[in-house]
Each structure stands twice: as structure tokens, then as C-alpha cells.
């Protein structure tokens, strides 16, 4: 009895230790930094640093919360427009990634088993070159005297170069190109696990292969679609490098605004407020989605 109970106690300590590792990681590297950002966003900018939130000058702790940055964001149409435009570009990117990634992942999952590791490697291969380099490469392809325009002109298909650079076209191409692997990988993981017997059952019940795809494969890969879309959408909203290099004056994105507030205006509270609002914009729909999924999973068991 004693031995077994002591074993259980040790076991529980071990369990606690293992569980606490990700929690510790989360608290130190996610929760605390976010709280610091939140704190800065409600401070005032002083000469070299931000003001202290708690003031002890009269012997009483006085907490000063400055909401001016948030009020400014809410009052300025440019910020709202930028947020909306960020979400719009992230959304288009996600849809295009899904449209290209789904068939890609589907055929990858259906290809012969011995070819799959190689195809997976090909998806990862671009990551071996610098991200900046790859984005720059697009620049040389898309500019007015770039590779694509030169070829088209020399083939007499067009007379004047197409305007493909520094507009929403180049921005979306860059974003879709960069985020596509993040859509394909979870979809592939999901689709390769799909039980082929469901498709056989559908065929047996009179479903043509095309219909079976929409009625069986797509609904059963819902988890992969959601995971892939999240992995693309969330970082795409806050993307900075791609709009900076491939975007133009018309392609407003919040990442560039953040940069400007931090490094051009040196207004840390404002930059932090912009970041906090962005987190909320992404987090709230995600939390709702999560809750809905948890409810669905709950009703299952």
C-alpha cells in the first residue's frame, strides 16, 4: 500500500512538472510580453522612455491609465481603414492559399506512398533560401522591366509593360507564395489520414467521384482547412516585410503602420495600442471559433 501510494505521489509530481513546462513557456514568452505591451499602450511617451503606470509620489500608489492612443486610433479613419485593408488582404491570401493548397495537398496525399516524402521535401525546399531573397526575386520578376514583362514584350504579346509591381497584385502574389506551405502541410496531414472506405461507401451508394469529393472529402477535412486557414490568416494580418517590399502606397497594412509608429514617430504607446487592437481583432474571432468547435467536440463525446 505504502509503496503504491508513494509511487502515485511521485507520479503526480512528475506529471505536474511536465505540464508546467508549456505553461511556464507560455507565461514567460507570451502572456508577460503581451501584458507589457498592454501596459505601454496605456502609458505616456516621455523623452526617452514611457512613463511609469504606478506613481508613489504622495505615499499612495496612483495608477494612471492613459487611453489617448486608443481614442486616437478609434477617431482616425486611416487606422480603421488600415485594419480593414489588412484583414482584407489576409482574407484574400487565405482563400487563394486554400484554392491552390487544397488540390495540391489532395494529390500529394493520393500519390504513391514512396513519392510522398519527396513531395513533402519539395514543399519545404523554399525555406532553405532566405525569405528576403525569395521576396526580392519576385520583385525582379514583376517590375516593369522585369523578367515577365520582357518576355511578354519580346514575344509581341503586349506592347507596354504590365503594371504588376507595388500594387495589390504583387502584394497578394508574395503573400500567397510565402504562406502556401503553411496551408498545404496541415491539409496534407489531414487528407492523408482520410479513410478511403468512406469514398467507396459513397460510390457504392450511387455518388459520382466528383460529388463524393464535395460530400465526403471536404467535410471530413474540415479540421485541416481550419488549421491551415488559421496558420495563414493570423500571420498574414500582421505581415510587414511583404507589403514593405512588394506592396505600394495603395496597399495599406497594419504591419507598416506599426513600424512607422515605433521607428519613425518613436511613439511607443501608440505603436503598442495599434498592436493590442490587432491582437484583439484576430483573437476575438478565433476565440469564438474555438468555443464553437469545443462545443461541437463536447456534443460528440
Amino acid at each position, binding site marked *: 500500500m505504502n509503496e503504491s501510494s508513494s509511487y502515485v505521489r511521485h507520479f503526480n509530481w512528475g506529471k505536474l512538472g511536465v505540464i508546467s513546462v508549456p505553461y511556464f513557456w507560455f507565461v514567460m514568452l507570451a502572456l508577460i510580453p503581451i501584458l507589457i505591451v498592454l501596459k505601454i499602450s496605456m502609458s505616456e511617451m516621455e523623452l526617452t522612455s514611457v512613463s511609469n503606470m504606478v506613481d508613489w509620489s504622495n505615499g499612495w500608489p496612483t495608477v494612471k491609465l492613459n487611453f489617448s492612443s486608443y481614442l486616437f486610433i478609434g477617431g482616425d479613419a486611416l487606422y480603421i481603414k488600415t485594419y480593414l485593408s489588412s484583414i482584407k488582404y489576409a482574407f484574400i491570401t487565405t482563400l487563394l492559399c486554400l484554392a491552390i493548397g487544397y488540390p495540391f495537398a489532395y494529390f500529394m496525399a493520393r500519390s504513391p506512398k514512396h513519392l510522398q516524402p519527396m513531395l513533402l521535401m519539395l514543399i519545404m525546399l523554399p525555406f532553405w533560401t532566405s525569405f528576403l531573397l525569395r521576396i526580392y526575386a519576385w520583385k525582379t520578376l514583376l517590375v516593369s522591366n522585369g523578367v515577365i514583362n520582357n518576355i511578354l514584350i519580346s514575344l509581341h504579346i503586349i506592347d507596354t509593360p504590365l503594371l504588376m509591381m507595388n500594387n495589390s497584385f504583387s502584394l497578394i502574389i508574395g503573400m500567397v507564395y510565402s504562406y502556401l506551405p503553411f496551408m498545404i502541410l496541415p491539409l496534407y496531414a489531414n487528407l492523408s489520414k482520410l479513410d478511403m472506405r468512406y469514398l467507396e461507401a459513397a460510390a457504392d451508394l*450511387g455518388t459520382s*467521384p466528383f460529388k463524393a469529393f464535395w460530400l465526403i472529402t471536404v467535410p471530413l477535412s474540415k479540421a485541416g482547412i481550419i488549421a491551415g486557414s488559421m496558420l495563414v490568416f493570423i500571420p498574414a494580418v500582421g505581415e510587414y516585410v511583404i507589403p514593405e517590399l512588394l506592396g505600394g502606397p495603395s496597399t495599406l497594412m497594419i504591419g507598416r503602420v506599426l513600424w512607422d509608429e515605433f521607428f519613425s514617430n518613436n511613439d511607443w504607446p501608440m505603436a503598442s495600442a495599434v498592436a493590442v487592437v490587432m491582437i484583439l481583432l484576430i483573437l476575438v474571432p478565433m476565440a469564438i471559433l474555438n468555443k464553437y468547435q469545443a462545443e461541437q467536440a463536447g456534443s*460528440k463525446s
Partner: protein
Amino acid sequence: MATAPNDEKQSAPKEVLLRVDSLSKIYDGAVKAVDDVSLTVNRGEIFGLLGGSGCGKSTLLRMLAGFETPTKGKIFLEGQDITNLPPHQRPINMMFQSYALFPHLSVWENIAFGLKRDGMPKDEIAERVDKMLSLVQLGKYPKRKPHQLSGGQQQRVALARSLAKRPKLLLLDEPLGALDKKLRETTQLELVNIIEEVGVTCVLVTHDQEEAMTMASRIAVMSEGYFLQVGFPEEVYEIPNSRQVADFIGNVNMFEGVIDEDEPDHVTVNCEDCIQYVGHGISCSPGQLVSVAIRPEKILLSQTKPDDKYNWVEGEIIEIVYFGANSTYHLKLTSGKVIKVQEINTTRELTCWRTWGAKAYAHWNDMAMIVLTQ
């Protein structure tokens, strides 16, 4: 086991529903999964394909469903060649092994799935699905998802789904394989009752001989891609045509021997342990090597030496396997051969003379055995 095929069944005109003509499936140009199989299934029949794993029974079934293309041969349904018809165009439905119920659809939607594809009017679908639900006694759970059901309930949903379109032929792939033994016994009869109520023709695939015997009206014993024997369950059990069939179906004791007397009314076979006197004539010739097969339940154990010249052996009980209703005794003969004898436990005595190490005589009558030449 199954009821004897009554006269009515045999005299009724048999209408061939399914005809398979020398069907073969060869993988990679060499592996013969199904090797030149021909068969006919009559309307209203439950045809059992029985065999061990890898014998080709599943491949044959999948060719009937359309999931595999035959390398050679033809399949006819009601005289129509369906060999090259894709699965979704065949009036054949299948109940899959472990069911393959769509996990994202409710019980109701699963059953309605095939009907919707046919473009049936909505109210007719609802009527048909409700009828199917009551047929399989699941009227209470139309909204549940498959994983919220027990194994037995899932099995019934799968049956309802495969019957909903009123297929001309129903294929059953190990229909009871996923259920535990007790549930399997009750479900077997339930399944047969439902199938007979609907009147659908079935091809049943199973590795479980009891399942095949109870459910099927005819059985094909399959091995290495071809049929060893096709017949009624009692034919396959009592008159196996080869050592392989006798061995596969049930337990059997084999005595190897040489034909001695070959008369029109009897045959004697000299075996190492005894002389077998067979009370009917067989087509063989003296000196021919044969196997005499005797089922364990057709042998009697006794303490005293039988008063007979033939058909008995002497040995020592080396193992007793107690099943409750009956016991199987392993008897080691003087030659070292071990035979099995099954006796029904008719009394409640806990001790009897048949114990480990006891000397016993086993004997059988002259119609208990079958002489196998191949």
C-alpha cells in the same frame, strides 16, 4: 446449425440473379488473388463466401461491388453485363466491414445518403428512411452521429443504409466481425430475419464458419483464389470433397490408410491404428491411398473394449477441453496419433471416469466417416 433445405426451396423455380464467369484478378502480373472463379447466385439466396484471410474472398466481393476491375472474366446481373460499370452505377449495395458510416452525418442522413443521390423526392426519402429506421429498430436515434452509437447499433445503421436503395444484390463484408461473441449470435438471426423480410439476394463474405453456416443458404469454400467446394452448409460439413475442406470446416480426425476390400456395399481401409469399415460403396480401387475423416462428435468414448472388429481405437486421455455444454477429449493412441472426441455433458456429475490419464476406447459406426481421395 442451418435448417435443412426443404423441398419447397428445392422445387421452386430458381431464377439466376448473379452470374460470374471465370473471373480472375491478378495483381502485378503474378499474384492470383482470384483465380478463374465461376458461380451463380439465385434470387432470394444468401450465398456465403467462406475462407481464411488472403483467400481472395474480399477481392471477389470488391469486384462484384465494382471497386476492383477484374483482370479476366465477366459479371452478369439479371443477364446484364456489369463487369465494366463503375460502382456508383451498379444496383448493388454493400455493407462494409466495420461499416464505414459517414462520421460527419447523422444516422438519418447516413441512411438517406444514397436516396438523395438518386434525386428521390424529399417526402419519399423521409418515408423510406423512417421505414428503414423502424426495420432495424433505431427509430429513437435518427439525429445521433455514428460514434454516439454502440457497435450493434452502428451495424444496424450500416444495414439500413445498404438496404435503403432496395438494391438487387446486397454484399455483406464480414457483417458481424466487429461485434463480440454474445452479440454476434443474436445479431446473426436478426440480420437473416431482416434480409428475408426485405427479400434481398445476398453475397456474404466471412472467415467465420459458424457465421456462414447459420446465415448462408449456400456456401462456397475458398482457398488461394478458387472455390474448393460449393454446396449447402450441411453438404459442406458432412460431405466435404477434399481434405482441405474437411479440415477447414469444423474439427476433423484424419486417418490415412490403404483401401483393402472394395465392394459395392462396403469398403475397408487399413489404417495404422485400426481397420475402418465403411458401410457404403465408394469409387476407388484396392491399394489406393485415402484419408478417412471422422468428426469428433461422431465418436463415442467408452471404458470397455467395444465388441467389434472394426472402427475402434484404444488410447489414453491426455487433454480435456471443457466447454460447458460439451467437452472435447484428446485421446493419444498407441501409435502416438492424437484424436479428438467430443461428448455432450448430459449429466451434472463433476467427476467421471474420463479423466486425465484414463484409458479409453473410442468407437464409431460404419456411416460416421467420409473417405477422401483428394
